[in-house]
């Protein structure tokens, strides 16, 4: 175990919230992004695991679904190209179900997880989302 890992472990013993705050300060993450991360990081360990990410994705889907009909259409997802939308829309019916949205988002999860440890750090999210 490296000195850095030991140090982080010791900090975690005194409060993972402090660790997260320290990490934010180092990355220069925007306050909005930081707020989103803190909301998503339910166990306050400074990382997003798959369960936490899943909950966040469901929330995103719900908030994007303006007419609350249980599907996302092109107009409800701003900034997504037709090609990306079509890739996520595996059923090819012109609308994205929650399952399709989750699948697409977990592809993003894999892409953002630079070190492949199965969780997203503050740095990985910032790098991927540039927030």
């Amino acid at each position, binding site marked *: 175990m490296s000195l850095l890992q030991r140090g982080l472990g010791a900090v975690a013993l005194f409060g993972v919230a402090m660790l997260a705050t320290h990490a934010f300060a180092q990355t220069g993450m925007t306050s*909005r*992004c930081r707020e*989103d*991360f803190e*909301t*998503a990081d339910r166990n306050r360990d400074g990382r*997003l*695991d*798959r*369960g936490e*990410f*899943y*909950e*966040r994705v*469901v*929330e*995103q*889907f*719900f*908030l*994007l679904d*303006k007419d*609350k009909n*249980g599907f996302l259409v092109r107009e409800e*997802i*701003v*900034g*997504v190209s037709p*090609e*990306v939308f079509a*890739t*996520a829309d595996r059923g090819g019916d012109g609308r994205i179900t*929650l*399952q399709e*949205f*989750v*699948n*697409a*988002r*977990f*592809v*993003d*999860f*894999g*892409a*953002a997880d630079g070190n492949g440890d*199965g969780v997203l750090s503050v740095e990985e*999210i910032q790098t*991927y*989302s*540039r*927030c």
Partner: protein
Amino acid sequence: MSRRVIRGGGLIALLLMLATGCAGGGGQFGQDLSQNKGLAIGGLGGMTAGGLIAAAAHASPAGIAAGVILGGLTGGLIGHLVDNKDKEIAAKTTHQALESAPSGKAVAWQNPDNGHTGTVTPLHTYQTGTGQYCREYTQTVTIDNRPQQSYGTACRQPDGSWRIVS
């Protein structure tokens, strides 16, 4: 490509799906992470759809009759309110919070006539097997400087109202 190679690839894909599917929360989404070549273009991207973890901006809730709103949200703390205007304001605020507030964000209300206040904070969002949206939330009501808090779950009805289910 030989049949053996295809079988081997399929086995690896299956193992990957088994290893990752349940971790997604609920285990109902067995995404095929073996398609590594599609990682960059297969998702929705970090900058789209509100960012990787961002709460999406959302329009204010569509107009809905006050009676409909009040009808499904009269349980919990709202049901204990004596003042009718308190009930109406609290129910509308609860509807607004459930409809559009990100989890963790408190939406406040105040009755200017008597100074009574309250907040509604969604905590968790999920979709049932039938596609119905449900949200767990916490609610506070402060009357005469005495705060009360309750937790509940409400599900969205086809008519756009929210009904408390627990």
